[in-house]
C-alpha cells in the first residue's frame, strides 16, 4: 500500500518541463516537414498579427496627439531609434528598419511565449542562431563593402605594442567569430531556462502541501520572466547595434 501511494505521488510528480518546446504540426499528427504549419508557425504568425495591430492599425490615425496604442508604437520606435543612433552612430540609421524588425520579433516572441499554453519561438536555437547569423553576416558584409580590407583593421589593434599585435589579432578574431554563438545562445538559453523553471514549479503544484509555495514561486518567476523577456530583446538589439558600429567604424 505504502509503495503504491509512493508510486502514485511519484507519477503525479512526473513532469516534462521541456515538452513545451516540442515543435509539432498544428493540424494532424504527421511528420514535421520544412513547410508544415506547426505551433512555431502559429506563434510567429501571432507576432506578425500583433505587429500589424500595434504598428499599422494603431498608428492609422496619424494623430498629432497619439492614442494609447499609437503612443506604445511611438515609444518602441523612439526606443530603438535612439538605441541605433546612440550606440551605432547616425549613419547606422539606414539599418534602423532591420534592427527594429529584430527587436519587435524578439520582444513579441518572448512576451507572447509567456502566455499560458504558448510556444516561444525564441527559446529555440534554430531561431536565435538564424537571427544571430543574419546579424553577423550583415555586419561582416557591410564592413567589407564600406571599408574593403580596412575592415580587417578591426582585428589589428594599432594602439598596442607591435609584439602584442599578432596575439591580440588572434584573440580579436576568435571573439569576432564567437559573437553569433553567444548572441544566439544567450537569448534562447534565457527563454528556455525561465520557461522550464516555471514548468518545474508548476509540476510541484500537484502536491497539495507545497502547492501554495509553488503558486507563489510561479507568480514571482512570471514577473521575473516578463523582465527577462524584455531585457533579452533589448540585449540582443543593443549588441546588434554594437556590432553594426564595428562594421561602420572599424577603427579602434
Amino acid at each position, binding site marked *: 500500500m505504502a509503495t503504491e501511494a509512493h508510486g502514485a505521488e511519484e507519477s503525479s510528480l512526473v513532469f516534462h518541463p521541456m515538452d513545451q518546446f516540442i515543435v509539432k504540426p498544428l493540424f494532424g499528427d504527421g511528420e514535421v516537414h520544412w513547410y508544415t504549419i506547426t505551433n*512555431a508557425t502559429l506563434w510567429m504568425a501571432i507576432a506578425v498579427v500583433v505587429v500589424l495591430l500595434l504598428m499599422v492599425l494603431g498608428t492609422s490615425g496619424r494623430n498629432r496627439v497619439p492614442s494609447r496604442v499609437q503612443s506604445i508604437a511611438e515609444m518602441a520606435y523612439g526606443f530603438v531609434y535612439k538605441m541605433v543612433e546612440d550606440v551605432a552612430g547616425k549613419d547606422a540609421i539606414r539599418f534602423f528598419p532591420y534592427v527594429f524588425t529584430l527587436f519587435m520579433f524578439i520582444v513579441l516572441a518572448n512576451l507572447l511565449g509567456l502566455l499560458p499554453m504558448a510556444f516561444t519561438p525564441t527559446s529555440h536555437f534554430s531561431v536565435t542562431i538564424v537571427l544571430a547569423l543574419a546579424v553577423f553576416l550583415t555586419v561582416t558584409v557591410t564592413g567589407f563593402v564600406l571599408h574593403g580590407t580596412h575592415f580587417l583593421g578591426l582585428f589589428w589593434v594599432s594602439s598596442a605594442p607591435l609584439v602584442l599585435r599578432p596575439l591580440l589579432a588572434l584573440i580579436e578574431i576568435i571573439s569576432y567569430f564567437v559573437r553569433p554563438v553567444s548572441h544566439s545562445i544567450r537569448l534562447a538559453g534565457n527563454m528556455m531556462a525561465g520557461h522550464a523553471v516555471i514548468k518545474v514549479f508548476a509540476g510541484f503544484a500537484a502536491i497539495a502541501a507545497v502547492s501554495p509555495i509553488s503558486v507563489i514561486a510561479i507568480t514571482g518567476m512570471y514577473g521575473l520572466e516578463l523582465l527577462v523577456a524584455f531585457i533579452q530583446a533589448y540585449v540582443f538589439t543593443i549588441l546588434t547595434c554594437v556590432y553594426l558600429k564595428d562594421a561602420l567604424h572599424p577603427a579602434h
Partner: protein
Amino acid sequence: MATITEDAAGHAAEAAGHAAESAGMPQLDFSTWGNQIFWLIVTLVVMYLILSRVALPRLGAVLADRAGTIANDIAQAEELKQKAKEAEAAYDKALADARSEAHKIVESTRAEIQKDLDAAIAKADAEIAEKVAEGEKAIAEIRAGALEAAETVAKDTAAEIVSALGFSTDGADVDAAVSERMKG
C-alpha cells in the same frame, strides 16, 4: 506488487519513448530546424516589409510632424510673448501720456476757471461800486429834494400864515426871510 512494478515499467517505457521523441531537449531535435528556420525567415520578411514599408515611415512622419508643430508652437508663443510685452509697454506709455494729458487739462481748466472767476469777481465788484454810487446819488438827491420840499412847505406855510394874519405881502419877502432862517 508485480502489477505495480509492471505498471511502473510501462510508465517508464512510455516516458522513455516520449523522451526519445523529443530527444531530451526539443531544441536539439534537428528534424524540426528546417521548419522553424523556414517559418522564421517568412515571418521576418513579412514583418520587415510591414514595418519598413508602412509602419516606420508613417511613425517617422508623425513624429517629425509633431516635432515641427511643437517647434512652431514654441516660436509662435515666443513671438506672441514679445508682442504682449510690446503691447504692455505701449499700454504703459499710453497710460502715462493720458495721465500727463489729463493733468495738463486739469491745470489749464483750473487756470481758465480762475480767470473767469477773477473776471466775474471784478465785474461784480464794478457793478457793486456802480450800484453803491447810484444809491449814494439817489440818497443825495432825495436828501436835496427833501430840503427843497421843506423849504417850499415852509415858505408856503409862512406865506399862508402871513396872509392869514391879514398882512398882504408879496411872496418874495417871505421866501427870502424863510431862506434866511433855514440857513441859520
